[in-house]
């Protein structure tokens, strides 16, 4: 049985078991996330107009180039083909206003990848969701650019929606006026009317649904002794039609956040493809809905404010407004910055829901999803260490 040199040569591959692998790959997961995000982003282009492509394009380009450059500089194998930088770019664009200048998108993208991800060691090692960290950075460094909630430039789609709302017994202008609590309510309504008439107005800015539900705390009355005697209510209960607008995305807001319905559709697609676990969106949304329903919130009667009773809050408006659906389905489900086990994910998601509503109802910002998720990202190592699964066979006595 002596072997000749020819026979001795390696015939077959001898890498380790398992010799079969599941077909799912990291690039496929990232690709599916992009696909699931596509309808909501497409809606943004339809609703806001072509210029909404500017933040999307520059954010993605900045993220991918930053990823490529830093990985090349560190001398590591190329990582842009795993698709994670594209996902970060799209998610960052989704939480930016549609009229963001291109350079601001580039700044956000470079920060998100450079500091948010690569500074920690690249994919899999970052603590905070890079897109949300990018947004937080932009919010802190260019708040005026980030807060300019823009109303959809509706065009044809607006006419179509308007017809539907006429059929439902309202009109876009009426509804826009109805939900508006600000002194410029008349202006808002007339501007919306201008869109109705398709009179050539290209860009409209104004308060978003969450802004409308949120009255600055500075409205308090201070008595002679310097004590705050009266707190102006912080939020306003919106009517059903504005809730519907919020869900459908005929609403001012960040680029990819406006259409809650399309985000839910994308999220359900990811659930079906088993890319994201059901527990995070479920508990995040559930907790936010319960708190939005339970806590008293202000609404306007004439010129006065009144509070809704306990357990009658506008929970449906809270779910459809702002970034909640984007946060619950696309941001909090980021695997890298989330807990490892189901128990941990449930704690994490409940924490996200609580923090979001605490910021929305009692905080200084109208929207809390971004900071809620970043805050809970920070807690992930702690959650992981507290939710280690029981190892099979431990805690059992030998016979």
């Amino acid at each position, binding site marked *: *049985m002596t*072997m000749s040199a020819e*026979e*001795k040569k*390696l*015939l*077959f*591959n*001898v*890498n*380790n*078991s*398992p*010799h*079969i*692998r*599941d077909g*799912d*790959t*990291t690039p*496929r*997961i990232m690709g599916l996330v992009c696909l699931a995000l596509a309808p909501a982003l497409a809606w943004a282009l339809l609703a806001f107009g072509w210029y909404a492509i500017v933040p999307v394009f520059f954010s993605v380009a900045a993220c991918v180039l930053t990823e490529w450059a830093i990985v090349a500089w560190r001398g590591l194998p190329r*990582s842009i083909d*795993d698709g*994670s930088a594209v996902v970060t770019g799209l998610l960052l664009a989704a939480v930016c206003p549609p009229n963001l200048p291109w350079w601001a998108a580039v700044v956000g993208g470079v920060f998100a990848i450079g500091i948010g991800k690569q500074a920690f060691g*690249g*994919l*899999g*090692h970052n603590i905070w969701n890079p897109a949300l960290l990018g947004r937080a950075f932009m919010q802190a460094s260019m708040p005026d650019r980030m807060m300019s909630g823009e109303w959809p430039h509706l065009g044809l789609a607006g006419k179509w929606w308007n017809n539907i709302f006429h059929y439902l017994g309202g009109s876009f202008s009426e509804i826009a006026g109805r939900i508006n609590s600000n002194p410029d309510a008349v202006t808002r309504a007339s501007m919306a009317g201008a869109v109705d008439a398709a009179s050539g107005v290209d860009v409209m800015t104004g308060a978003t649904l969450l802004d409308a539900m949120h009255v600055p705390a500075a409205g308090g009355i201070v008595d002679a002794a310097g004590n705050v005697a009266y707190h102006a209510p912080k939020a306003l209960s919106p009517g059903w039609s504005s809730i519907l607008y919020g869900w459908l995305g005929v609403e001012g807001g960040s680029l990819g956040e406006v259409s809650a319905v399309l985000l839910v559709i994308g999220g359900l697609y990811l659930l079906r493809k088993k890319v994201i*676990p059901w527990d995070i969106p479920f508990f995040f949304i559930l907790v936010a809905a319960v708190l939005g329903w339970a806590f008293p919130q202000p609404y306007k009667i004439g010129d006065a404010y009144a509070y809704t009773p306990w357990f009658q809050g506008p929970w449906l408006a809270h779910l459809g407004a702002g970034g909640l659906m984007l946060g619950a389905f696309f941001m909090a489900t980021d*695997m*890298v910055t*989330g*807990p*490892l*086990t*189901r128990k941990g*994910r449930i704690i994490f998601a409940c924490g996200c829901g609580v923090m979001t509503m605490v910021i929305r109802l009692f905080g200084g910002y109208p929207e809390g999803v971004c900071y809620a998720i970043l805050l809970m990202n920070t807690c992930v190592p702690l959650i992981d260490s507290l939710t*280690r*699964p*029981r*190892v*099979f*066979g*431990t805690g*059992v*006595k*030998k*016979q």
Partner: protein
Amino acid sequence: MNYRFHGGVHPRENKDRTMDLPLAKAEPPPFVAISFSQHIGKPATPLVKPGERILRGQMIAEQTGYVSAAAHASISGIARGVVQVRHPLGFLVDALKIENDGLDEWDPAVKIERDVDALSPGEIRKIVQGAGIVGMGGATFPSHVKLSPPPEKKIDTLILNGAECEPYLTADDVLMREFPEEILRGAELFKKAIGAGRAIVGLEDNKPRAAAALKAAADRLGSGIEIAQLPVRYPQGAEKQLIYALLGRETPSGGLPMDAGVLVHNVASAYSGYEACAFGYPLTERVVTVTGPGIGKPANLWVRIGAMAGQLLDQCGFDPAATRKLIVGGPMMGLAMRDLEWSVVKGTNGILALDDPAAYCHRACIRCGRCIEGCPAGLLPCILSNYGESDRLAEAEEYNARDCFECGVCAYVCPSKRPIVQWIRMEKAEINRKKQMEVK
């Protein structure tokens, strides 16, 4: 009532090419190379000189110490001396080469018919030991050692493992279908040897005909052996998972099944045990599934121990050009062979010619948690793989690396294609090496 063990996966079964085939006999090999290391434990000590005429069933190597097993000639012929063949684990081991004289003449000394019902537990153990029977599911632990638990361990249940949860393999399935009575009689003998009151055959429910055959045989024999069908889920056949699935008992971490009052034997070992006790036949042949995309004529074959892989594969329409990986065992835990210079051993339940990507380029862990959901041992494989990568042994030990039994589910499900189980294997080896150093 069955229980659901934690984790697991359901890979594509790929059993359809061989599951309906009857059990056939492999062509007689022109020569065999019978390894002295076919079991866990010390290699057997050779008893035969070159040039000697050997009869089938003749002991050619005796066991060395207690944890070891004898080897027997699987054909009759002339001993051609000790050669080296490759062990599935990769290293070369000594083997006796016997040239086949084509007569297949049994050694009259071993062929003894016995009344199995009259055998005492001690006699059963002795016969099993003499027949060189080992765990035939692949682990190859000497069966007589398992049948001799320390007296303080009370074993109430014998479990026969017919789960065959690895994809592709159908060797146990076809054996259970065609020899259900022999398997159950073997179970009765093992049960008697350990003094257990209960015996269960556990198999996955993708083998309905095997289950039916076993149930019919149990009725015929009037034996109280239970036949339990379990859902298809890898690693259903891992013994601690099988015990949990059938009895809801957890084997303690670091312990053996006997610590949970259970003994687990493979169905093929029970078959061989019966053949040895009833007819005196030592273990000289076994069922091997030969299949995979590189095999033109897949088959379930009776193969003589020591038959060379090349000769066996040639009968099955082996196409080396269509084969990138040659696996001994199943695709989840089997071992990849570099060439054809190795012979069938007692634990060889399958040979797979797979057309697989050469290597998976792995990426960073994205913490998706799929390995945690899949891990039947309840570990955090992704964390352990990171510790392996960064050589942090103390943490790996603290995270129970030693409870891993290397089923490979973690690496199977990993979307970043990380060789997680391999890192854990290396950690375990390193932790054990350090422990041994401490003892010294």
